């Protein structure tokens, strides 16, 4: 595993990418209780070759001959992480989740209210065998028939969106209502 680590570092140097923040590497030494010294954890930002008891455990709690016995019990591990990746990933994930939630609120609450105001309440009732107006996309069929007039980009986007809504409605019927697939 250490071989892969050094290869990854080489690759990053070749690509001129900034190596991680110096905070992102550490050597963690865990030393159990020994005679009358309590157990302690030592952490330092050293590289892999310096990751041993003698470099990391400072100040050394025991003297002289006991150092070797103390260090034999300690376990030192080299760890690295990429804090930039973590930050970027979480922020991207939260933005996508936020956008989806907003779109979902728009589709389920805002759009039916707007359409009701635009087209009038009566036209919404004639959607076929949907389970009432509470279904999202219940008016997809109506909008499709209304939009023959303007063949331009906006119209095409709306067309595609309505087609997508129809597909999702079909899927929802198979999965949630008739329990045909994915029961």
């Amino acid at each position, binding site marked *: *595993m250490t071989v*892969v*680590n050094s290869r*990854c570092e080489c690759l990053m140097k070749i690509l001129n990418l900034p190596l991680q923040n110096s*905070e992102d590497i*550490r050597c963690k030494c*865990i*030393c*159990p*209780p020994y005679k009358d010294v*309590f*157990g*302690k*954890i030592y*952490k330092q930002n050293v590289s892999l070759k310096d990751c041993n008891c003698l470099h990391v455990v400072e100040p050394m709690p025991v003297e002289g001959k006991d150092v070797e016995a103390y260090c*034999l*019990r300690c*376990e030192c*591990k080299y*760890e*690295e*992480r*990429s*804090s930039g*990746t*973590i*930050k970027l*990933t*979480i*922020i*991207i*994930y939260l933005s*996508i*989740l936020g956008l*989806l*939630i907003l779109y*979902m609120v728009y*589709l*389920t609450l805002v759009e039916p209210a707007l359409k009701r105001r635009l087209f009038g309440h009566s036209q919404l009732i004639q959607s076929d065998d949907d389970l009432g107006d509470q279904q*999202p996309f219940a008016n997809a069929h109506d909008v499709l028939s209304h939009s023959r007039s303007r*063949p*331009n*980009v906006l119209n*095409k*986007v709306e*067309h*595609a969106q309505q*087609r*997508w809504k129809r*597909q*999702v409605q079909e*899927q*929802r019927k198979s*999965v*949630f209502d008739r*329990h*045909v*697939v*994915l*029961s």
Partner: protein
Amino acid sequence: VSSLDPMNGSGNLMDFLDEPFPDVGTYEDFHTIDWLREKSRDTDRHRKITSKSKESIWEFVKSLLDAWSGWVVMLLIGLLSGTLAGVIDLAVDWMTDLKEGVCLSAFWYSHEQCCWTSNETTFDNRDKCPQWQTWSELMTGHTQGAGGYLLNYFLYIVWALFFSFLAVSLVRVFAPYACGSGIPEIKTILSGFIIRGYLGKWTLLIKTVTLVLAVSSGLSLGKEGPLVHVACCCGNLFCSLFSKYSKNEGKRREVLSAAAAAGVSVAFGAPIGGVLFSLEEVSYYFPLKTLWRSFFAALVAAFTLRSINPFGNSRLVLFYVEYHTPWYMAELVPFILLGVFGGLWGTLFIRGNIAWCRRRKTTQLGKYPVLEVIVVTGITAILAFPNPYTRRSTSELISELFNDCGALESSQLCDYVNDPNMTRPLDDIPDRPAGPGVYTALWQLALALIFKIIITIFTFGMKIPSGLFIPSMAVGAIAGRIVGIAVEQMAYHHHDWIIFKNWCRPGADCVTPGLYAMVGAAACLGGVTRMTVSLVVIMFELTGGLEYIVPLMAAAVTSKWVADAFGKEGIYEAHIQLNGYPFLDVKDEFTHRTLATDVMRPRRGEPPLAVLTQDSTTVEDVEALIKETDYNGFPVVVSRESERLIGFVQRRDLILAIKNARQKQDGVVSNSVVYFTEDAPQLPASNPQPLKLRRILNLSPFTVTDHTPMETVVDIFRKLGLRQCLVTRSGRLLGIITKKDVLRHMAQMMNQDPESIMFN
């Protein structure tokens, strides 16, 4: 409905927004593909490219690109699957800890990452640091006491409910196909079934996003099965870039098999195990070329995940263990007992889960999916918080159970009584008596075991992405660890018995409870999914120890035998049967002595076979036939008197060809004769122009005679991937056997309900 409006100036850019015009040769939703036709179309395409490549340099380059396109697709699939798996792992890590507290210095850090640089962690309290605060600390400043505990409890439940409500709402509004595990449906798709939209872009997006929410909400489910679905969606996405794969359903399924391997590879950090899983569990036809490409995709995916490095230390999976302590022959007895436990649990889980899913499918329970998810999450959160082993995420639990106790581990499981007079370094455990912490841990683990066994039955199959690898491994790991500690303590307290005398010497390595946990996990996973080789390879890639292969195999074999004694199907086959998919399993053996006449349609008393004649049917007759019946195809015979077979024509192709002809060709009216021969029939001049449909006729349909044994017929269907087969006697057409008939017959022979087969 393509817009042929001349005023439309945007040209090809916006064509992707138009509804695609279906051409001849595509398939309808929920139908099976024709494997032989796809294969021959691919051979034609390849031959055309090869012959054109000799014409010019550009054509030669194009033929090279065509040959390399397979590898490019694999590379892209590996990159995207690895990236998505890394994102999912990091997000789950953070959101799981969000239920308990938040990192004040940087909110995007999970608990472990938050305390990474802090110097305030002590030997006894390795998790505490001032930057991370639980919700009760943050809101009220109390850390101890009933008030703080209750506030933490309450907020834990609130967060869990919030996450699962978001997950099920997103699934319901945007992509209903994103729920469930995905592996049964992918198995069916790979065997030739078409489910449009199941591997689409919205399904990919929603499955990734809601998987994180579902796992973080603390429900008893895993992410491995859904990761296979995510990887197959990536495969489908990249297939649409190359016409070699997008137009040919058979070639597309080769890519999907390889993508499934990449999915398991990033779930477990096991590339070889992933390829074997795809080979054993998921794929239907697995040519050798796919083996090498799957391996490439799995490796690229594993490498991409490693460079994202979600868990620090370049580990791929959270519960990677690295010890190499030996095991002893006498330990095979408890390992086999763990195998028996795994088999029994697998049977219990499959029966319970299928019964519950059937109830969800048929009764009122199925009408309230959102409410069901919320109630199950609530119950899980309420029961999971008090027990420290169920409060944390299942992956962390497994990781702790797998780990061996060194002197440096601080968990309760490692609270052994240390003899202060021992002078040699305490880096392993010779036999030591268990301290009180271990006994507490034991009964908490026993409660966790019962809880997980019961709650997983109700969780798997809900309308959110849910996998079951991790919960099964958790059940097995808990059982294994309990058995391991029991054996270890027995070895300590009775080290004068014969079996332990040679085994455990004072001061030497004795029993490793972590190994028992691994063996238990493998046994339970094998009992529920009935995996064999792939399971052992995944477990050994997880542990990195070749010396544990024999115990793992012993447990896996035992659990499969015990589970097979109660029922032949694993969980995925059982779900396929529950949904009625037309999946002809290659593992089933058909040993009954029925003949083709017993299964073919029409039976006695049924209306005669609906056929078309070679040159005497009119367009009107054909349209009437299509309207009155819903058969997927019609045989074409020479004439109604002689009934000699010419070929077979598909319903969809007929509909499209007639519609096309009515729109585009002149003179085709309802009275026009439809002919399938090479030359037009001799007709009086007053008749309207005849319509030639030879192009859509399949001139080589598969036929068997009426005395062919059904064993052979089933074999033909399986090996060639047929959809229908015609039955003749002395050259005359007698009837037809479709795949649905075969499946119903097999179900009837096994005393199952033949009416449950729903699709063609």
